[in-house]
Each structure stands twice: as structure tokens, then as C-alpha cells.
């Protein structure tokens, strides 16, 4: 079957969303994955973006941002970030969020702030590479009952410890997160461009549970910056069905996910 790696990634993410849930999507790939789920198997999700666009479906392809006309034009309600992040997410009502990551570590902590030559002093020195900041991802990571992380699987992104925690995962593992009384439960899954990682229920370390049909356990281990544990029940992810591809491409009409594989 003809599909790209990014399409597999979006479909795998969409499969994580169940019908009827309240779901919040970040910019880009996560939005395509979310609206794909809405069209494919979850028509009754209560979807929103950080900008407060509620109950929309994109028109004309990948939205340019969280308040883009491509989604705001047919939204049920177009409110604001305070309603979306402040009330719906921070109160713990939101079931699931989808965020991206520049760097992610083995406990699902996400860095979108910057990269430092000496990460131990990151608060006091200028970064080597300044990234764009967490935006609403920190609220989603703290407030949603669970959240999904999407990231390209590369060694420089999948690191032992992130340079800076922009959006908290399980912090140092185990029950470290409980100390902070976040309303949300933490990351449930990391969907990468090669496979799927889920947290161990006790240590909260992310382990490999599925690999995509075009990848392998070896390839994934090679592209991970820590010694990735592999689940004994590791299996290959089901290929996208023709219906799934058709529904994804109905959202991604401009082919943003088909440009490169």
C-alpha cells in the first residue's frame, strides 16, 4: 500500500483517540491526526485548539495555526485561549491532548524551549539553539487526563534527559509526578516516525511496544539516545486501511504529509 511515514504516524496517533472524548490539538501534524480521528472513527469528539476554536473541521488543508481561518470558519464556537487552556484544560475536563516535541526523554518530558551547551546551567546562559517555547503544550501536559507526544524518531531528539523541561512528563520517573498535584495524568504514549512507545506502569520509563511496518526494533533502538527497553509483546503496527488513508487525505487535502516520507 502506498503511504508515507508521516501518514502512518498521523493515523497511529488518530487511533489513540476514542469517540466522545474532549480532545485538544497542537499545531501541525497533531491537528491533522486529531481531525483525521474525528472524520474516521470519532465523530462525536469535542475538539478544541489552544486558541479556543471548538468543534471545527479543517477546510482546504493543514491549518496554519491554532486560530487559522481553515478551522475557525466552520467552528461551533471561537472563544479564546483562556477558555480553552484556562478553563477546559486546567480544570481537568479535557480527556486527551496531542503535542509535538523538539526533544523528549525516557520519562516523556518534553523540551521545546532550547538547547544548551551546558544544560545544567540552562536558566542562566543564552541557549545554543533557541526554540519557539512551549505555547499551550505545558498546559496540555499538566491538565489533560492523558496526552500523546508526536516526534520524529532521531537520536538527537530522543535523549536520556532533556536540556530543559518545557512540558512535564513523568519527570524523574516512578511517582515523581504525583508531588506536583497536576490535574492531568501524564503522557500515555509517544508516537514516533518509526513506532510507538508506552510507559512502564511502575517505573514510567517509555518502552517500545510497536514498530511500524516499514521499520524494525533494531532501527528504532539505533535511533534512540537511551538504552531503549523493548516490550516482550512488541508487535508490528497494523498498516493504514484504505478507509483510514482516504479519511486522512480528506483532512490533509494539500498533501502536507505526502511531501516526503
Amino acid at each position, binding site marked *: 500500500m502506498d503511504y508515507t511515514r508521516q501518514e502512518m504516524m498521523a493515523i497511529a496517533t488518530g487511533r489513540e483517540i476514542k469517540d466522545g472524548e474532549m480532545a485538544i490539538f497542537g499545531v501541525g501534524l497533531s491537528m491533522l491526526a486529531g481531525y483525521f480521528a474525528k472524520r474516521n472513527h470519532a465523530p462525536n469528539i469535542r475538539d478544541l485548539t489552544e486558541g479556543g476554536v471548538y468543534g471545527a473541521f479543517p477546510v482546504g488543508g493543514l491549518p496554519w495555526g491554532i*486560530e487559522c481561518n481553515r478551522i475557525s470558519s466552520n467552528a461551533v464556537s471561537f472563544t479564546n485561549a483562556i477558555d480553552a487552556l484556562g478553563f477546559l484544560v486546567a480544570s481537568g475536563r479535557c480527556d486527551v491532548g496531542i503535542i509535538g516535541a523538539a526533544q523528549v526523554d525516557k520519562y516523556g518530558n518534553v523540551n521545546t524551549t532550547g538547547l544548551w551547551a551546558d544544560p545544567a546551567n540552562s536558566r542562566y546562559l543564552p541557549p545554543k539553539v533557541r526554540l519557539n*517555547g512551549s505555547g*499551550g503544550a505545558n498546559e496540555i501536559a499538566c491538565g489533560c487526563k492523558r496526552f500523546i507526544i508526536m516526534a520524529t524518531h532521531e537520536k538527537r531528539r530522543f535523549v536520556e534527559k532533556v536540556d530543559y523541561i518545557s512540558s512535564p512528563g513523568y519527570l524523574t520517573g516512578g511517582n515523581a509526578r504525583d508531588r506536583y498535584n497536576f490535574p492531568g495524568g501524564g503522557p500515555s504514549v509517544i508516537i514516533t516516525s518509526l513506532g510507538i512507545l508506552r510507559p512502564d506502569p511502575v517505573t514510567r520509563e517509555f518502552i517500545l511496544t510497536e514498530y511500524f511496518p516499514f521499520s524494525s526494533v533494531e532501527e528504532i533502538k539505533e535511533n534512540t539516545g537511551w538504552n531503549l527497553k523493548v516490550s516482550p509483546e512488541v508487535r508490528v503496527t497494523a498498516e493504514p486501511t484504505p478507509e483510514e488513508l482516504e479519511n486522512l487525505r480528506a483532512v490533509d487535502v494539500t498533501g502536507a504529509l505526502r511531501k516526503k516520507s
Partner: protein
Amino acid sequence: MCRKVMPMAAAAELVKDGQMLALGGNALHRTPAAYAHALARLKRFNLKIAGAAPGYASDVLCAAGAVDTVYFGFFGFENEYGLAAGFRKGCQEGRIKAIEGS
């Protein structure tokens, strides 16, 4: 009644060195681009910028060297337009202090 309509250049003159500006819009959407261009021409210094998701207009001022502090949640252009080059360079060279909150 007080008349607020004025030429762009005169409006830009209202902002002095060291002041804090709240610039509206979100990334590439609805940012006051023409105003940022007019203000950048005046070569102001030590401006402070506050915004939820500053984008193009704020980046023009960062690139012009007019900004020393930014208070923000997200600073970039979103999607394939990526990171804001002026802000990024300023931060990496230590000219701009980034106060990221969310």
C-alpha cells in the same frame, strides 16, 4: 472628542526607548506588521514585548535590535515557516532575555 486617527509614522513615534509593548495577533495571523516596520525604522532601544504567541511583528523588532526582553508563551511562525529568526539570533547572542511562561 479626542481624535485617535493619525499617520503610521506619527503612531510609531509614540513608543519611546525602554517601553513595554503588547503586540496582538498570533504567530503570522493578525500581527501589526506595518506598525512594526514603521517602529523598526525609528531605531528604538530596550523595548520590552509581551504577547501570548508573538510572531512576525515582534520578530521584526527583535531583528532590528530594538528589543531587550520578551514575555511570551510561544514565539515562532508555526508549521513550515518554523522558528522566528530575529528572536532566535537575539537570544542565542544574549541580547534578548526570554521570559517564557505558559
